[in-house]
């Protein structure tokens, strides 16, 4: 059981999907119950990962490895370190909650809808645990398909435009990424005479700086479009606005993290020289900062509630990428934590929109106002989600932002100074949104009679709020989990960082690999 734990986590949604296919399309309630059960099971089986994960071990845990296509050198090789662990947990939690929040929102083609979500779930987990580039690429592309359909079939009025834009943008990125992967693959063959997609093997390839830079930019396009970093972000607002609520929740909470994860897992460790190239780092940091400020400013002007939150993602993910390109432990650890935080906070904000959209079927901010009078419970939950997104201390966002900014400051003071303005603007657009939708008198008669949140709706938010408070008040376990993998990345990119005179740097003890579950 233990040695296949990760496979079980990976395949549980798929198993749920297989059973789902045999349920007749007409029995909608059964489909709903089953899909929720399957997603919940997916969450439950991922819990042992947390309890059995050994903090501080070098390398990967729960590894499983089997030959897949020997002639190509492709393997079924999965495993996880602290970064993967947190992202997988985010995926299983948000996946379940996204499926739960579709209960009443989706009425047609329920079977296909839930099938897409379960498929998506496996794809996303696969991306975060693959240790073989071929396998990774399969999962990476696999995620694209169900998301395309979720937007294109169950989306809003301009769903086709949005879905195709989403698909083409990401596909363009991933094709370039594939070119990068193949370059690495052939370079490795030239040097070692064997074909392999094994990431640990590819890491041994030495490449001249010039070539590393080309590969870096190829990867960059793939990942930057996914994040999305400025100026590759324009697919995101359209995709979010048209996607159904659960689609937006998953898109924001998990899918975008595939890009940042790609930087951390592939760009940095595989191309350390390019990653430390001053020009490249400068460009990426500046793009991140532009993303932070630009995203926030554009966000402020939106008239569409959902578009506003979509642009806020551009701003928040700017913090995540800035942390990565600070290339120091605080920046990177803060970035991963902030990725989790963004998943929780923005996931909640999209669910908040889902709640009102189900009642009023409009996302125009001007259609609302004074909702706090008619929906007091909703007002409280929205306020908490807003504050967690705005980075209020004792809620999750603050810890991540602070650590990132500390890392950015260590890298370059000017970066930090600009990035902090994003924190000011973050408060501005969220408070203004809250004021326009929730406060004041009810001016639109249609809003007078809408019901407050039901028990099921409140229940969806409670675990996320609890999680937000946990990270805000006691984030130490997260930093403990992240310390080792982050140290490995930093060591790889900046050899000697820990031994060189960085004050008070805690030197991570390399632990023997003997005890790793194999």
């Amino acid at each position, binding site marked *: 059981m233990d040695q296949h734990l990760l496979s079980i986590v990976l395949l549980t949604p798929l198993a749920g999907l297989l059973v789902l296919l045999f349920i007749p399309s007409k029995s909608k309630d059964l489909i709903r119950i089953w899909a929720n059960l399957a997603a919940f099971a997916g969450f439950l089986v991922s819990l042992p990962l947390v309890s059995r994960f050994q903090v501080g071990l070098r390398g990967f845990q729960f590894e499983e490895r089997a030959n897949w296509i020997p002639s190509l050198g492709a393997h079924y090789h999965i495993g996880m370190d602290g970064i993967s662990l947190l992202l997988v947990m985010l995926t299983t939690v948000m996946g379940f909650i996204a499926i739960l929040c579709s209960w009443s929102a989706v009425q047609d083609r329920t079977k296909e809808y839930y099938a897409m979500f379960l498929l998506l779930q496996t794809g996303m987990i696969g991306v975060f645990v693959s240790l073989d580039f071929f396998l990774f690429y399969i999962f990476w592309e696999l995620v694209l398909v169900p998301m395309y359909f979720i937007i294109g079939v169950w989306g809003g009025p301009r769903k086709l435009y949005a879905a195709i834009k989403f698909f083409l943008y990401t596909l363009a990125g991933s094709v370039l990424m594939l070119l990068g992967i193949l370059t690495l693959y052939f370079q490795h063959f030239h040097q070692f005479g064997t074909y392999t997609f094994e990431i640990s093997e590819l890491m041994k390839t030495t490449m001249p700086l010039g070539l590393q830079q080309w590969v870096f930019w190829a990867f960059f396009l793939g990942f930057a479009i996914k994040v999305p970093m400025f100026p590759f972000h324009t697919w995101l607002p359209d995709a979010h606005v048209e996607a159904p609520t659960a689609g937006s929740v998953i898109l924001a909470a998990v899918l975008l993290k595939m890009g940042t994860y790609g930087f951390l897992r592939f760009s940095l460790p595989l191309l350390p020289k390019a990653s430390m190239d001053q020009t490249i780092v400068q460009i990426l940091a500046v793009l991140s900062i532009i993303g932070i400020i630009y995203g926030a*400013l*554009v966000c402020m002007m939106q008239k569409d509630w959902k578009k506003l939150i979509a642009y806020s993602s551009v701003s928040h993910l700017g913090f995540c990428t800035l942390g990565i390109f600070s290339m120091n432990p605080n920046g990177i650890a803060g970035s991963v934590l902030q990725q989790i935080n963004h998943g929780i906070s923005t996931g909640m904000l999209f669910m908040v929109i889902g709640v009102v959209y189900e009642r009023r079927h409009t996302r125009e901010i001007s259609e609302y106002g004074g909702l706090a009078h008619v929906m*007091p419970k909703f007002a409280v939950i929205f306020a908490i989600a807003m504050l967690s997104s705005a980075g209020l201390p004792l809620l999750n966002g603050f810890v991540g932002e602070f650590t990132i900014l*500390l890392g950015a*400051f260590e890298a370059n003071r000017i970066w*930090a100074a600009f990035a902090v303005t994003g924190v*000011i603007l973050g*408060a501005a657009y969220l408070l203004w949104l809250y004021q326009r939708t929730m406060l004041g008198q009810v001016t639109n008669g249609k809003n007078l009679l809408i019901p407050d949140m039901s028990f099921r709706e409140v229940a969806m938010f409670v675990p996320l709020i609890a999680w937000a408070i946990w990270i805000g008040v006691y*984030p130490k376990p997260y930093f403990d989990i992240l310390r080792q993998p982050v140290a490995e990345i930093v060591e790889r990119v900046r050899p000697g960082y820990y031994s060189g005179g960085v004050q008070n*740097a805690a030197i991570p003890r390399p632990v023997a690999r003997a005890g790793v579950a194999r």
Partner: protein
Amino acid sequence: MQLWLIPILPLAGFVINGLVGRRFSRGLVSAIAIGSVVLSFAWVLKAIFGLGDLNSRYVEHYYTWIASGSVNIGVDFAVDRLTVVMLLVVTGIGLLIHIYSIGYMAHEGGYYRFFAYMNLFMFFMLVLVLASNFLLLFVGWEGVGLCSYLLIGFYFDKQFATNAGNKAFIVNRIGDFGFSLAMFLIFKNFGSLDFTKVFQHAPGASEAMLTTIGLLLLVGACGKSAQLPLYVWLPDAMAGPTPVSALIHAATMVTAGVYMVARSWPIFIHAPSAMNVVATVGIATAFFAATIGLVQNDIKKVFAYSTVSQLGYMFVGVGCGAFSAGIWHLMTHAFFKALLFLGAGSVIHALSGEQDLRNMGGLRKKIRWTFLTMMCAAVAIAGVPPFSGFYSKDAILLAAHEHAPWMYWVGVVTAGMTAFYVFRAMFLAFFGEYRGKEHPHESPPVMLAPLAILAVLSLVGGFLFNIPAFLSGVFPAREAVEDSSLMLISVGAGAIGILLAWFVYVAKPAMADSLASGFGWIYKTLYNKYFVDEIYDAAVVDPLVSGSRTVLWKGVDAGLIDGSVNGVGARAQDVGSLLRLLQSGNVRSYATWVLFGSVVAIVAMALAGIGSTGGLR
């Protein structure tokens, strides 16, 4: 000593009232809210008596909060004599204002919400003063800002209230920009954010570094404590219920900046130019705000600008190195300004919501207790000896004179204006003929009792609590300068202010209007607060909004980026429609293409073969 209980108790009150207070009776809600503050106050007293003379800091470590890389920040509380003063002010005044609120809020909706927010405020404020490192202080700092936002916007029906709430939060965030950068710089230089460590190593750092840190901290303090140029949120914050104005926007939260500067004295003391900036900002704010206070007609606005002005005095104190004088004024100001606001609340309550001084008058006979207690505050703030404000203001002005004589003289003029505007408000409200329509009624005892206690404190708080003596071990020693002529001058300025107010508003009431019209444009400028809000709007807010909308969103996002993306799409379609011509359905033409393609493929492979053997490496 279980210091954590001090803030946790109000937090418990917040959680209970916040979650289920809606279903409770008003009595139960206030019992929980006030009970939690009483317990907290009691625990403060117990802790103080249990900790002895507190000549050194007493620290409690609870758990490690953030530990990443070289960062290790704990949740630690500490108590020293400075904290003791702050704890007593916060819980003591906080308790009185909570009790007062029972009466004031009796007829308002959202009763449980109000008390929940107030308790949450107490929690964050106590975290702020107990914090033993900069980040934890920042937690309290942001938290009180949140509560301020929530309470300013308490009447969330009203657009101006919610606008004021947003403004307060955002302006504070601008200040936090400085505070955050200061923290990063402190961490970078000292490898820690812990007070003990940072202050231990501060003397070893370069003066330029300490000056930068000090100035950045000052930016934060200017936001929270409403100093130039970030004071603009505080006058608007009076949109909240009056007890909130008294507690948060007069007695406690707004003094956090002064506390923070005083707490960071080891940094400032080695950065004399930063201290000079602190003092200059303080004196400028004190003067500037006082001039605006001279002509306001809303009773709460008068006291709001007065608060800004008095906070300026505190900054002068700490900026001149007289840290204990600044804290002394912080305390006496908490007494008399809380009392002025609560008294104003009592007046407003008596007049069923009327706040305009022009619609008051002659109230001294109708609401006698309110009048008497407020008079105690008025003489205290005007610096009449031997009442509380006299002591602390005198200590600050003496230090200012030692620092730079011009600051003393500006301070004296400001003291005169202070006496004038406070007594102007008193005379307009309580003397002359009643000009309003409502029937005034005295407030209930539950409101008057806190007023009475604060009145006593305002009168005797100065000589009863000799803060400089109490804090002598905390701050660097200063030579005590006694200059009775300087003292007499400032007292004289206060007396002139009071007499002038008496003359203009009681003896010759017609004079006020003729003065206003005589100095038309000055009056207008002051009345409109130097048009600062309008200038900020035109210089910052509007360009930001329209720039974001037209340039960034419509221009860059929709125009440039999406335009080129869609352009690529359209070109791809063109190419596709050209390529479609190839797909003719003619077998012979397909065969030709296959042949052509094969040739190209073979050539390409040959070239690639050459490349892979020779080139790529």
